[in-house]
């Protein structure tokens, strides 16, 4: 990454007369423009859209330079808690680039058997990994997976004419998407309290369980990285009142090779392929949020569904019992190619190392820093853990300061101020693809920051000093929103 900001916008490189395209038959194109001019005037655009006009080399320089303002997993360590920023294997990109790229989604099924087989095989692979009966891969991201899972749950209760279940229970440590998804599925959200060790308070849960509860949504391990060891009791209590148990798969990584949500009693789950299954996050997407269900709930999965005929051919099916439709077609297809390639690269045995190594890495960092950073919940963590800021509270150095100081050291910041259980949450997730050397470098940087927080707190509080951008004015951005190139020109 460079230390100088490359700050041009593509609009600022635009020059009249420049072009970056060559169409196959430009005479035909111009003839068609003549046809378009004969359409009724009121149907046509009045003035041309303000798009840039650039030649190809200019565009290539622009985006190459702007990419150097960015930090990715390939650039350096990215310990962003609950985001599982593991290495994105290159073979997956290569395979996905060419596969099915020219197939139209509405082609006849007999011309897309290979494409459907990828879907089918990944669906099967996730089912054995999750301990579920079947997965839909259609949801485009984890949040949409949650929403879809809740729609499945509502459809299940409705199919039993059990209409009184209006509430979803969510632990207070849950990811923000859980309550948001429950609200978007038309449910009332009820929070369940945590114990001092960060796990669900079973007594509080039991007091809130009754026939008005549709489901309990849980992350396991939870957002403080603790395994919910009471899960057998919790599952039993939830099922006893006729409610279902939903598994938020954001934290599935440490369980690969160790445990399966289906075996823990979860009825419905989602998986973030861009976390556990190494597909790139793309600066915010595309992800994929497949949803799995236990046997007996398959008919509620959203349309369309990929099914196998007795002769082995695959087909795309729609049925009335489905919870509805959450995507125009089968979702973010090429992401499935990457996830399947990852699973097959590791194979049945290789996958079993993922969870344990991720957990070992997290515990190693935790043990190496807990003398200087406040560890509110001791004991072995799983893939991630949370510090509540520095142990020495007298320095005035906050979690935000620590996060920004890490940027100067060449690391991405951890997740900060989440979970909401602690004031100065600093949530660290190293993943299994980081070497001991990288972890040691990170540990020294964190120790150095803690040391400087005591000796020169003012300097730490003003970091970062060396990034291409320093201390953007967020208040100004929100007070006077400038959201487009036209806004900037005003």
């Amino acid at each position: 990454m460079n230390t100088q900001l490359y700050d041009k916008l593509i609009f600022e490189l635009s020059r009249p007369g420049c072009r970056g395209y060559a169409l196959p038959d430009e005479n035909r194109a111009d003839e068609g423009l003549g046809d378009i001019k004969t359409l009724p005037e009121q149907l046509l655009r009045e003035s041309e859209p303000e798009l840039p006009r650039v030649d190809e080399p200019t565009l290539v320089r622009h985006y190459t330079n702007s990419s150097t303002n960015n930090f990715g997993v390939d650039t350096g360590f990215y310990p962003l808690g609950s985001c599982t920023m593991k290495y994105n294997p290159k073979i997956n990109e290569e395979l996905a680039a060419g596969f099915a790229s020219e197939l139209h989604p509405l082609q006849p099924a007999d011309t897309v058997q290979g494409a459907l087989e990828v879907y089918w095989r990944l669906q099967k692979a996730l089912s054995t990994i999750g301990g579920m009966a079947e997965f839909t891969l259609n949801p485009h991201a984890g949040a949409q997976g949650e929403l879809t899972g809740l729609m499945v749950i509502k459809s299940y209760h409705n199919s039993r004419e059990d209409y009184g279940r209006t509430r979803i229970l969510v632990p207070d440590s849950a990811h923000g998407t859980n309550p948001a998804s429950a609200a978007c599925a038309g449910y009332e959200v009820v929070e369940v309290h945590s114990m001092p060790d960060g796990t669900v308070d079973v007594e509080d849960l039991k007091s809130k369980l009754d026939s008005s509860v549709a489901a309990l949504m849980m992350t396991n391990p939870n957002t403080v990285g603790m395994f919910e060891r009471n899960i057998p009791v919790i599952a039993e209590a939830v099922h006893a009142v006729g409610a279902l148990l939903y598994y938020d798969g954001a934290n599935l990584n440490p369980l690969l090779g160790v445990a399966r949500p289906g075996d823990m009693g979860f009825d419905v789950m989602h998986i973030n392929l861009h976390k556990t299954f190494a597909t790139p996050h793309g600066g915010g997407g595309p992800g994929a949020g497949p949803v799995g269900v236990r046997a007996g709930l398959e008919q509620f999965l959203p349309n369309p569904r990929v099914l196998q005929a007795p002769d082995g051919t695959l087909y795309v099916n729609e049925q009335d019992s489905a919870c509805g439709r959450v995507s125009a077609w089968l979702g973010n297809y090429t992401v499935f190619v990457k996830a399947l390639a990852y699973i097959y690269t590791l194979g049945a045995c290789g996958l079993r190392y993922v969870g344990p190594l991720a957990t070992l890495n997290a515990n190693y960092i935790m043990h190496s820093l807990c003398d200087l950073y406040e560890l509110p919940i001791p004991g072995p963590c799983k893939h991630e853990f949370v510090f509540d800021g520095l142990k020495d509270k007298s320095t005035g150095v906050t979690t935000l300061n620590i996060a920004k100081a890490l940027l100067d050291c060449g690391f991405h910041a951890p997740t900060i101020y989440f979970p909401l259980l602690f004031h100065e949450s600093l949530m660290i997730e190293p993943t299994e693809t980081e070497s001991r050397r990288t972890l040691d470098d990170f540990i020294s940087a964190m120790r150095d920051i803690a040391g400087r927080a005591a000796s020169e707190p003012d300097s730490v509080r003003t970091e970062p000093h060396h990034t291409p951008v320093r201390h953007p004015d967020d208040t100004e951005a929100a007070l006077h929103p400038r959201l487009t190139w036209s806004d900037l020109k005003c």
Partner: protein
Amino acid sequence: MSKIYFLPSHEYARIDEQNPDIAYVGITPYAASQLGNVVYVDMPEADDDVVAGEEFGAIESVKAASDLFSPVSGAVIEINEHLLDNPRLINQDPIENWIIKVQMSDSSELEKLLDAEAYDALCKSEKH
């Protein structure tokens, strides 16, 4: 000094000195300090009705957003238009910079609200 009443959700109703049926509604200094720099206030329109205990708008800072609940019922007779251009006035003086002015339909509702002393105690308990 005009009379002032509070909701536990940190809105106040300040009674107009001339007209006891008119209340100025805004957020408390404690709420303003918790929010930080206010960047936007979502307000109803004049003539809209508000209901005691119900939402009438929302207030946003850079990192937080909070619904606004009305301490009193009645009709909105004026909104504080200065806040449209300069929402940070709320951080400067939230009591002076009220959000809406309400013609109260039932001033007996005020009895259900907290007085200054009870509200102070509430803020102190929230800090811990």
